């Protein structure tokens, strides 16, 4: 009898755990207007469907700098003077309030447009907000990263944790009730690792952590992004390069409109005009911005570590030195090239060898599977048509997070973060 009861209990718990299903938002009731994932990624939500937010004038915010790596003052060349100290932005409430850290995505600085948007959203809801650059960002790499070779997520998270502690120390008098953490894209992956680190270091005891569109398998994500510049784009020929093609379209668009008007609705409006870009062209555009990030990362990492792959280690650089030849070289290096030429050799040297598969396992969400599975404070919001995911990644998230995963049917990569429905869900998560 007792045994069958036990069996029943086991079965029951199995069913229960199976019933902790992810929240899938139905496309019909979701109401997000952009069904094309590339369009959503580039243009994001049409302005009238965004939440109403405070203007910059209404926010009590300022930029501070941290001197995390004093030796860089001397080891970095002169024309890096602006990034020898790490800048971050903090928006303060005039009373005791919870504080939320926001981590930027791939190659983005603390003031990237998504981070600015999230800041306004949370500030309006009564949080102190700290905006941080991504560990892959140029300024973070030069001012705060120990190895300046981002990609080993565990190490990046440790750098990030130190920065957060320094931020806390610099604002010691700020009355903070609780700490929260969020990040988008690569910043979400960093946030997951930072949260794990906090379980042992206990500086913040994050009450809740929200991951927005994180990569699941980092290698899948960079492969997808590298691949985006390989689309077959119509209209490119011997006389017209891809940029010229896009600029010509933009010129014709403005000519038809009659005047130049740069505003939030521009991209959305442009895609609804005759000159709109095709899927392949949009993919190429997205791929291009990521290739420029890859070039920045590869160059900066090479320069700081003096590896001599892109720039000769002892090349004299002053403020007047042209960096164009090195940009030309760095442009040839995509994420995969950066990984194989710089990350893997360093990682092997520091960790007694190991294969690419092992590296991918260590730096992706897989490494935290058990932790994420058993931590009720961490939740994920993702999109079913996100370009940084591969087949099976959503399945992993479903298994790992259960009902703490919300899957939106549309939005591309981070394109629906500024949709009102998503904004409400984000605020609700931290409030509840």
């Amino acid at each position: 009898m007792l045994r069958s009861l036990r069996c029943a209990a086991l079965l029951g718990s199995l069913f229960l755990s199976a019933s902790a299903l992810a929240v899938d938002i139905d496309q019909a009731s979701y109401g997000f207007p952009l069904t094309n994932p590339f369009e959503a990624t580039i243009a994001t939500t049409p302005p009238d469907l965004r939440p109403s937010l405070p203007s910059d004038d209404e926010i009590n915010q300022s930029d501070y700098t941290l001197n995390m790596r004093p030796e860089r003052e001397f080891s970095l060349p002169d024309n890096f003077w602006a990034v020898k100290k790490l800048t971050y932005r903090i928006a303060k409430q005039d009373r005791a309030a919870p504080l939320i850290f926001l981590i930027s995505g791939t190659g983005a600085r603390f003031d990237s447009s998504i981070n600015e948007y999230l800041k306004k959203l949370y500030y309006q809801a009564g949080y102190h907000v700290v905006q941080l650059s991504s560990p892959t960002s140029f300024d973070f790499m030069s001012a705060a990263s120990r190895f300046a070779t981002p990609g080993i997520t565990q190490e990046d998270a440790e750098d990030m944790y130190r920065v957060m502690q320094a931020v806390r120390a610099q604002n010691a008098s700020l009355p903070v009730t609780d700490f929260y953490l969020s990040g988008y894209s690569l910043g979400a992956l960093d946030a997951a690792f930072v949260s794990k680190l906090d379980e042992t270091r206990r500086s913040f005891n994050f009450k809740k952590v929200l991951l927005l569109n994180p990569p699941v398998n980092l290698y899948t994500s960079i492969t997808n992004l590298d691949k985006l510049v390989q689309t077959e784009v119509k209209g490119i020929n011997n006389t017209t390069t891809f940029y010229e093609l896009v600029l010509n379209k933009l010129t014709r668009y403005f000519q038809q409109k009659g005047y130049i008007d740069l505003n939030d609705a521009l991209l959305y409006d442009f895609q609804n005009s005759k000159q709109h870009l095709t899927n392949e062209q949009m993919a190429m555009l997205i791929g291009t911005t990521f290739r420029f990030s890859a070039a920045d990362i590869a160059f900066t990492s090479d320069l700081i570590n003096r590896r001599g792959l892109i720039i000769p280690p002892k090349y004299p650089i002053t403020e007047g030195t042209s960096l164009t030849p090195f940009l030309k070289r760095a442009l040839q290096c995509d994420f995969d090239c950066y990984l194989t030429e710089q990350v893997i050799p360093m990682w092997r040297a520091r960790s007694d060898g190991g294969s690419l598969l092992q590296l991918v396992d260590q730096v992706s969400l897989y490494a935290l599977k058990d932790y994420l599975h058993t931590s009720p404070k961490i939740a994920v919001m993702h999109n079913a048509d996100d370009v940084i995911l591969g087949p099976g990644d959503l399945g992993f998230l479903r298994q790992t997070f259960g009902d703490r995963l919300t899957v939106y049917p549309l939005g591309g990569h981070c394109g629906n973060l500024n949709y009102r429905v998503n904004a409400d869900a984000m605020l609700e998560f931290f409030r509840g």
Partner: protein
Amino acid sequence: MAKYLLLLAALMCASVANADNSKAHAPTVVGADGFKEPLSKLKFNPGLDQREFERSSLTALNVYDPLESWNRRVYHFNYRFDQWVFLPVVDGYRYVTPSFLRTGVSNFFNNLGDVPNLLNSLLQLKGHRSLETTGRLLLNTTIGVAGLWDPATAMGLPRQSEDFGQTLGFYGVPGGAYLVLPILGPSNLRDTSGLVVDYSAESQINFLNVSEVSSNHPEIWALRVVDKRYQTSFRYGQLNSPFEYEKVRYIYTESRKLQIAE
């Protein structure tokens, strides 16, 4: 053997025929876990070895910049000046003035700027635009009380900037060497001479008597400069790249081309 060859040939033909179809309208296949595989909507080049990104970017880096070393130094000077002088002053300005006053100041100087806008629209024989800018000047100077308000924009006459650099470009004058001007930022030979012409035209016309008064009262000039920085959203370091100089140079060159073409 011949059979195999034939089969192979047929297969290759089929794949070529397939490759020509755009996949944009292919039905979305949803995976077992709900994943929509956005990349399956794209047509990739078969070898994944095209070098279009590299070709475009390397071509884009070809901007005529013989004074690069000098320009880069000025660029860094501007960066520092911006961080240590300009932006703190703008922040102070923002701190001591209420929002409506700042908008009024911006409107006032923008209204003055509509005079060169009108002149250059006329010089480029852009009839429609000249009429609109004339309308703006009339409305804003009268109903808008010397330009402090901007009723014209609300009435559907948006500000359309035209400067003498654009006029020169309109008649086919090439940009010439890229120049970074102290404090003013990126420019080129053509646009720098355009600036000089616009400036002297403005002081000749002496619209609303501002030019004459400000020669005795440099504080008007200072206010104008601060307002200009207040209205410009660009921040140094914003592009967040060790190659910001190259990127700004490209963006400036292309946006000027766009303004001229439009």
